[in-house]
């Protein structure tokens, strides 16, 4: 089923989970992650841009109606979390939602088709889902992290920000400064890590299950029992795909929602 017939299951899975890497060590680049990120971003937000450019204030068409539905949904969600000016936060949320969804949606491409296609171009590896690469999820969560700090300082001033590091959440007693700071550091680290790991873990696990079902499918060629197992794998592959539609949407929404919550919390004074 795969481009170059895998000798065993671990090789099959390992092949699907390896990035197309250029360079060595820390300065290596995952070309597949970067390119798929651009393609999905341009597809998702480019569609929004095309609709936005032709947007009419009169009676909207179906496509514009759908786009407006999404925009309104994101705007309402952000409004529920953050009462202030949404000129930046709402489009940020839309960007996250659309981009993460599009990247996750690459997971729905049948993995062996992708492998075949990539094999035909002669590339050794091509990991098609950018969100199964920790670099993508951490890039996003760290961007959100820096935005959180930026908005926190913007809302309270640098002094207020530092003051809060030492005095919240327990109170302004010199004895409590160290526990406060420790807790805040844990919190500030936990936020981006959990944000990135959640998305990565969900997508990686989902992709892995597709692969396991793919391995199960390869049994079909071996024996009659294998054929039954292969048929079961086909059904399960389809069922998991349907379920995965929900997961990719949910993960995109969760990432957007938590980012908004973190930035909204940065505006709050303690």
């Amino acid at each position, binding site marked *: 089923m795969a481009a170059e017939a895998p000798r065993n299951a671990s090789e099959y899975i390992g092949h699907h989970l390896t990035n197309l890497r250029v360079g060595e060590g820390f300065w290596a680049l995952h070309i597949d992650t970067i390119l798929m990120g651009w393609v999905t971003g341009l597809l998702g937000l480019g569609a929004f*841009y095309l609709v936005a450019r032709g947007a009419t204030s009169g009676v909207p068409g179906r496509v514009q109606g759908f786009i407006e539905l999404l925009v309104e949904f994101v705007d309402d969600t952000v409004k529920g979390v953050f009462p202030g000016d949404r000129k*930046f936060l709402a489009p940020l949320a839309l960007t996250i939602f659309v981009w993460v969804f599009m990247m996750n949606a690459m997971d729905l491409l049948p993995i062996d088709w992708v492998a075949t296609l990539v094999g035909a171009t002669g590339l050794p590896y091509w990991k098609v889902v950018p969100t199964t690469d920790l670099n993508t999820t951490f890039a996003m969560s760290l961007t959100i992290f820096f935005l959180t700090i930026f908005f926190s300082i913007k809302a309270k001033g640098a002094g207020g920000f530092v003051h809060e590091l030492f005095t919240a959440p327990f109170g302004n007693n010199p004895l409590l400064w160290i526990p406060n700071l420790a807790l805040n550091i844990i919190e500030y680290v936990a936020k981006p890590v959990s944000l990135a790991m959640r998305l990565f873990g969900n997508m990686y696990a989902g992709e892995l299950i597709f692969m396991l079902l793919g391995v199960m499918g390869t049994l079909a060629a071996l024996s009659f029992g294998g054929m039954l197992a292969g048929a079961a794998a086909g059904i399960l592959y389809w069922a998991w795909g349907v379920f995965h539609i929900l997961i990719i949407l949910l993960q995109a929404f969760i990432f957007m929602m938590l980012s908004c919550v973190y930035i909204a919390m940065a505006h709050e004074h303690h």
Partner: protein
Amino acid sequence: MNINATLFVQALSFAALIWFTVRFVWPMITNAMDERTKRIADGLAAAEAGKQSLERSSVQAEEAIAQARGRAAEIVAQAEKRASQMIEEAKVSAKTEGERLVAGAKAEIDQEAARARETLRSQVAALAVAGAEQILRREVDAKAHADLIAAVQKQL
């Protein structure tokens, strides 16, 4: 862990997408939506204003109709009054005219009668004188007795 420089590229891509959405996509869509909201609100307000002005003008029209109806009734009443007045006047004038004619006729008749009486009287007097003349031809000189005859004539 597989963290490497890809992270920076992805962060830059993310930042570029955010900038793109904040700068272009979001304002364009929300502007269109806000404008539509405004247009719908304006349309509803215009419809409300139209409804109100319709109500106002229908009230006005009703008032005008009521006024016209009252005026028409007034005119009819006036015309009726005038007609009966004219009939009354005509009656009165006809009566007076009749009376006048009757009076005129009566006067003429009186006059005629007086004239006839006068003629008759003069004829009777002449007859009497003629008779008397016949009788008195012999003894009475008409000229001598003219005074007498005139006195008789007067008495008649």
